[in-house]
């Protein structure tokens, strides 16, 4: 019983890593391996966070560039709020292209067909 309460509380804390975001859902979502992945969090207001630090969007290029040079197989995963204006994501993608980070993934947990995607 105590263990259960412990796990229930840790589930909530894991979501707090980074900004609070409400991820979109997908039907075709594939498993993205956690190793080799750096997570970019973007909330509905367009704030960007990597490694729990809120950063200016232009810092994506140097930060990811540095990580990429240490790990050329790096995958950049976008954990973006579904209400975020696409312009922010598009700008982030441009910075990633500048950093030559071409492997990206848009995180969207799978739901079964018929469930609510919105």
């Amino acid at each position, binding site marked *: 019983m105590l263990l259960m309460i412990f*796990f229930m509380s840790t589930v909530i804390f894991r979501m707090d890593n980074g900004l609070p975001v409400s*991820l979109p859902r997908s039907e075709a979502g*594939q498993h993205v391996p956690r190793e080799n992945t750096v997570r970019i969090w973007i909330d509905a207001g367009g704030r960007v966070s990597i490694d729990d630090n809120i950063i200016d969007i232009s810092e994506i290029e140097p930060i990811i560039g540095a990580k990429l040079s240490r790990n050329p197989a790096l*995958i950049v995963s976008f954990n973006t709020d579904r209400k975020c204006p696409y312009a922010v*994501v598009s700008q982030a993608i441009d910075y990633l292209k500048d950093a030559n980070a*071409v*492997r*990206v993934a848009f*995180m969207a*947990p799978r739901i079964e067909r018929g469930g609510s995607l919105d």
Partner: protein
Amino acid sequence: MRLVRRKRESPEIPLASTADVAFLLLIFFIATTVFSIDEGLPLILPARGASVVKVSVKNVARIVVHEDGAVTVDKKVVPVDSVSGIVRKMIAENDKLVVSLETHPRCRYGRMVRVLDQLKLANATRISLRLYTPETG
């Protein structure tokens, strides 16, 4: 006064199973934390400086996601859930097809993912993500 001695009530709900229930819930929470953030739609972006590949217009399916979330395929408005069927057919007719997914900057990101999801369901492999600039129509 006669005190009616009541038989000690045997428990109606067998308490032994609360441990089982707790255990099941525990396993459930362990399992759900692992799966939820690990699924997504992978994509390979073109590298900056890669030579621009010229693609003939007939080999491009232009999907535009507008500011209000409306989706058009080659300028025709379609319901978003029909995109995968439409693209699947287009690919069956032309396997060199490139899908150009253009999204309005003020459109919600969730909408773009919904359309990208449809493209993945249609097994589209050549996808190009762009910003939609309304002047080009």
